């Protein structure tokens, strides 16, 4: 965190100054480790073993926050008798289809779900993760979970052998401290200290927070890493309470915003699923399959209709399904890597690359460039000419002779972009906090904001529309923002107001609970409703934290409804009383008959703690007064996910696709559902291969930004880390004859790149599987051009292996070989690669 989020890390230092104990778990000893109270080295790709062992420690020793767990999680829920665990099937769950490499999750369901009559719900439960894994990934369910029984059978004594608590206990039983030592390389004493610290600092009086970054997500089991963290935090009662939670540090300013108002292919604003071309014929069919009917997600019709009204205005009416038919549809996975394969296959002809540099920043860089070279047209918008815009004249494939400029037909349009200080708008940070940014200076030359670009592109396209029906969605689209200045910059505040939404009177709405399913309200993103309440840009509020309470509700605006801690109903006990004076946040005021507190309660204001839903209740009415997780069908935190995950209801350790050791826990080596590709352009290092004996992990440095587009061209940053380097242990250096400050060549089946050598005891070899495993670390900021600091592309080394839930690449754990000296050039490089591929 100190390494990649130094500004945010000041608050960790502040917490430390106030007595917080900071543990840092990372394959390399970083600037964060230097400041932590305790550093735990871990082999890249084994975090589920560690988290699983912590879960096991909590369960075995009865250290869970029992009242919280019983009331607020699905620990007592009884699961179908058809369910079989990885314990029973040596690393597989029931329902695995070996041919399709996917699960049918129907056996994972809550007991009794089989008898549910409602056809839509039934189908959804049965198809569950499988459908979404194929079409889009389970976070198609958005901020609500998938449909599941609102009131399943339970055993509050937690003794039923098929209740979640017991299943969890059995599942994690083999995740022991000894296993942690064997798989992760963390010594039992260090594990014991961590386990003691997190359990001693959880409960009524205290809370523990987990903070993670892409070290948790970029794995073939990435989504399950987060699930493991969530299970642990739920067991310890650390969700929905001040000082608790799982905090995802994003890789770039407003990445949170770019999933709220998504740049992802599978969701619409506010995490509404993207409709499928063949499954969702009309609005009703779409809504029936779009997640739970109980919980606040049950209001999905209001959110969707208001979105359609926001986009198609008066043209969207109840008679025409509010122009649901105008929405684009999915036919399958349209993620980044699938798109690249489509480019190579010639099915993807055009490509917009905005503020990204995939030729350097994405895994398997050669594959990315092969795709770019096979397009009809390519638009790159960036601050400078990044490698993605210049690959056709100076890419590494030109040097090897694999590509020739004259053969590349791609027409490249480079559009200079305005930087964040040259345009107005919002940043949404990981806390869901929207902060408005003023423009400080005009962008130079022809550089323009993204908003300007898309708005005027849209206007130009609309000028060319015909009367043909195919153009109707664009003709009817609301596209009329006020413009200002000599370049006709559209008003960003008008866009924010449109996102906020308006009521029948045309006034800005104040909360998403005001949204209606009848088309009388418009809202561009239901979770952002309220950011423009009272016709005021709430995100622009700048009241100092010194002039208001600890929660600082008048600094910016957080979705939803300006809540700073999600699910904060959990900060009070089932009766609505704070768990402790020290950790009080919101509570039930019996006299006034309402929820109150320091934060905006994440609960219906007047729903008493003792409220019990009547049968057949829908939406939030089906959530009892004592269950805080109001977006879930049953209002509970899911220790066990009966649907929604493509690769199992519980996190399970699988080795990375490329791993030097077998899976010490199961016969299954790697995630059975991971996405791998059987194509010649997508080679892999064989698991356990002696050709690739070292663990390879990649990361960022404080001094640079992602693929370098914003830092390599700046002398003041580039001089601080001028060259690509690899970090190796002193022992590996000695063994291979690597000289500190000299050169090394790092090889995988994808590429061979050269880097300067940094020999450091911060990289720790581990004794695993009876032998010494060396790890090699590479930052990935460099590319071949466009800056004062250049270097080979680290991501060229990385494989195209994807998590089956969200299709993120396994960028943090692979294998490699290391050789002293610089890499060969031209044809000799190809020959070296061929040698390694053949073995």
């Amino acid at each position: 965190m100190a390494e990649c989020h130094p500004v945010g890390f000041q608050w960790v230092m502040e917490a430390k100054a106030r007595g917080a104990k900071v543990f840092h778990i990372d394959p390399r000893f970083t600037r964060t480790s230097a400041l932590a109270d305790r550093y735990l080295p871990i082999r890249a790709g084994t975090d589920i073993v560690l988290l699983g062992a912590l879960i096991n420690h909590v369960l075995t020793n009865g250290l869970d926050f029992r009242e919280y767990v019983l009331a607020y999680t699905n620990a007592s829920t009884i699961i179908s008798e058809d369910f079989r665990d990885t314990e029973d099937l040596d690393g597989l769950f029931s329902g695995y289809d070996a041919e399709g490499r996917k699960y049918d999750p129907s056996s994972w369901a809550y007991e009794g779900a089989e008898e549910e009559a409602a056809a839509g719900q039934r189908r959804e439960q049965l198809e569950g993760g499988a459908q979404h894994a194929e079409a889009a990934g389970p976070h198609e369910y958005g901020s609500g979970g998938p449909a599941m029984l609102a009131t399943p059978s339970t055993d509050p004594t937690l003794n039923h052998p098929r209740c979640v608590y017991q299943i969890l206990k059995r599942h994690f039983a083999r995740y022991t401290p000894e296993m942690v030592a064997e798989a992760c390389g963390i010594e039992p004493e260090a594990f014991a200290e961590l386990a003691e610290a997190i359990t001693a600092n959880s409960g009524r009086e205290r809370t523990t927070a987990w903070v993670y970054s892409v070290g948790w997500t970029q794995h073939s089991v990435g989504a399950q890493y987060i699930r493991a963290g969530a299970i642990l935090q739920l067991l310890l009662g650390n969700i929905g309470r001040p000082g608790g939670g799982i905090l995802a540090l994003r890789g770039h300013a407003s990445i949170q915003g770019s999933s709220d108002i998504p740049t992802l292919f599978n969701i619409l604003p506010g995490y509404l699923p993207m409709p499928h071309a063949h499954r969702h014929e009309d609005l009703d069919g779409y809504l029936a399959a779009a997640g739970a009917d109980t919980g606040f997600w049950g209001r999905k019709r209001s959110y969707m209709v208001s979105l359609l009204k926001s986009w198609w205005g008066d043209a969207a009416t109840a008679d025409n399904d509010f122009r649901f038919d105008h929405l684009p549809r999915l036919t399958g996975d349209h993620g980044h890597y699938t798109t690249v394969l489509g480019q190579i296959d010639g099915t993807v002809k055009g490509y917009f690359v905005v503020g990204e540099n995939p030729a350097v920043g994405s895994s398997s860089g050669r594959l990315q460039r092969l795709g770019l070279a096979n397009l009809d047209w390519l638009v790159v918008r960036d601050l400078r000419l990044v490698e993605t815009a210049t690959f056709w004249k100076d890419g590494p494939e030109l040097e090897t002779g694999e590509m020739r400029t004259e053969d590349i037909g791609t027409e490249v349009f480079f559009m200079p972009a305005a930087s964040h200080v040259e345009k107005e708008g919002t940043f949404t940070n990981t806390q869901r906090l929207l902060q408005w940014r003023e423009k400080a200076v005009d962008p130079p030359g022809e550089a323009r904001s993204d908003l300007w670009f898309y708005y005027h592109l849209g206007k130009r396209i609309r000028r060319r529309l015909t009367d043909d029906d195919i153009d109707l969605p664009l003709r009817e689209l609301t596209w009329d923002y006020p413009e200002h200045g000599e370049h006709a910059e559209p008003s960003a505040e008008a866009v924010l107001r449109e996102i906020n939404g308006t009521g029948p009177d045309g006034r800005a709405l104040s909360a998403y609970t005001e949204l209606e399913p009848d088309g009388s309200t418009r809202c561009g993103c239901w979770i952002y409703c309220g950011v423009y309440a009272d016709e005021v840009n709430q995100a622009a509020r700048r009241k100092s934290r010194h002039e208001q309470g600890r929660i600082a509700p008048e600094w910016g605006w957080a979705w939803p409804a300006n809540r700073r801690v999600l699910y904060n109903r959990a900060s009070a006990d089932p009766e609505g009383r704070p768990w402790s004076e020290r950790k009080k946040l919101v509570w039930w005021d019996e006299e006034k008959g309402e929820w109150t507190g320091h934060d905006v309660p994440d609960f219906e204001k007047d729903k008493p703690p003792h409220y019990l839903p009547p049968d057949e209740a829908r939406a939030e009415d089906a959530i009892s007064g004592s269950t805080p997780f109001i977006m879930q069908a049953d209002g509970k935190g899911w220790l066990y996910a009966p649907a929604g995950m493509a690769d199992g209801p519980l996190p399970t350790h699988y080795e990375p696709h490329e791993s030097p050791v077998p899976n010490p826990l199961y016969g299954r080596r790697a995630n059975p559902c991971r996405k791998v590709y059987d194509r010649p352009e997508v080679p892999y290092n064989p698991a356990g291969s002696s050709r690739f004996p070292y663990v390879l992990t990649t990361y960022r440095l404080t001094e640079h930004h992602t693929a370098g587009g914003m830092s390599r061209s700046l002398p003041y940053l580039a001089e601080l880390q001028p060259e690509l380097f690899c970090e190796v242990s002193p022992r590996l250096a000695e063994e291979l004859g690597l000289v500190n400050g000299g050169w090394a060549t790092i090889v995988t089946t994808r590429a061979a790149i050269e880097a300067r050598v940094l020999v450091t005891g911060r990289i720790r070899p581990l004794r695993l599987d009876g032998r010494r495993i060396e790890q090699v670390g590479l930052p990935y900021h460099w590319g071949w051009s466009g800056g004062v600091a250049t270097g080979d592309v680290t991501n060229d080394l990385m494989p195209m292996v994807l998590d089956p839930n969200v299709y993120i690449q396994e960028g943090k754990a692979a294998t490699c070989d290391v050789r002293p000296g610089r890499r060969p050039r031209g044809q000799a490089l190809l020959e070296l690669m061929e040698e390694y591929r053949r073995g």
Partner: protein
Amino acid sequence: MAERVGFFTDTSICIGCKACEVACKEWNDVPDDGFVFRATSYDNTGGLGASTWRHVAFIEQRVPAPGNGGPGGPSGAGELPADSVGPGVETGADGERPGAVVGEPVDRWLMASDVCKHCTHAACLDVCPTGALFRTEFHTVVVQADVCNGCGYCVPACPYGVIGRREDDGRAFKCTMCYDRLRGGLEPACAKACPTDSIQFGPLDELLERAERRVTDLHGQGRTEARLYGADPNDGVGGDGAFFLLMDDPEVYGLPPDPVVTTRDLPAMWGWAAGAALSMAGVMAAAFLRRRR
């Protein structure tokens, strides 16, 4: 004269982000200092000089067993071997049991942002023949670029090796403690940019008090290696306007353990020189007198 201001750099909370280096260059329009991969931990800056007015040092260390734990551990840092980074470091044998870390890994990483000390007795200022170096109303020491003639006397005069001449320009440059910002009532750029308040700016007396409290706190936490550097008005430079809290001996950070203002002996030297001149004059006079006889 205004109140004396200064820097207190608390290296125990430095996260090595180098924001101070960048902010300094941005504000003061200091040019880049070359693009050199130095293979010395994460330090590619090297040291202070004409084009580097803030420099973050990175020192990788091994805490000997059983003091097993990073900066929070009860390590007697005074006895720490300050290993340099390099293949020669590794000495340990393989661990026996699974999960054991092989070899003897680095588990302490010191980071410290160095800067001009703005000495109470500043030799650079003493030796400057043009008056380009002067003491400001804030008791800081500043070079006036338009007066500097590039003679370079100040460079060897500095006991810390802070000031340097730019090759292409010839003149001497160093930290001004953002003199222009101070006059405008702002804190220096590096202190402003520091995310963890490792660099603190303020009236020197207040900083000294705060620093003493911080050392006491750290000692209370068992981090007895914490000590102040440059805070003693009785040291060889009369105390620094920019002083530090260090977690190891000054040499480990590349700082002189006992800096002395290089002009300290000048009065005595001039005295001896005068004495020598007088003696010589006496001898010569005697010689002439004798010949006259």
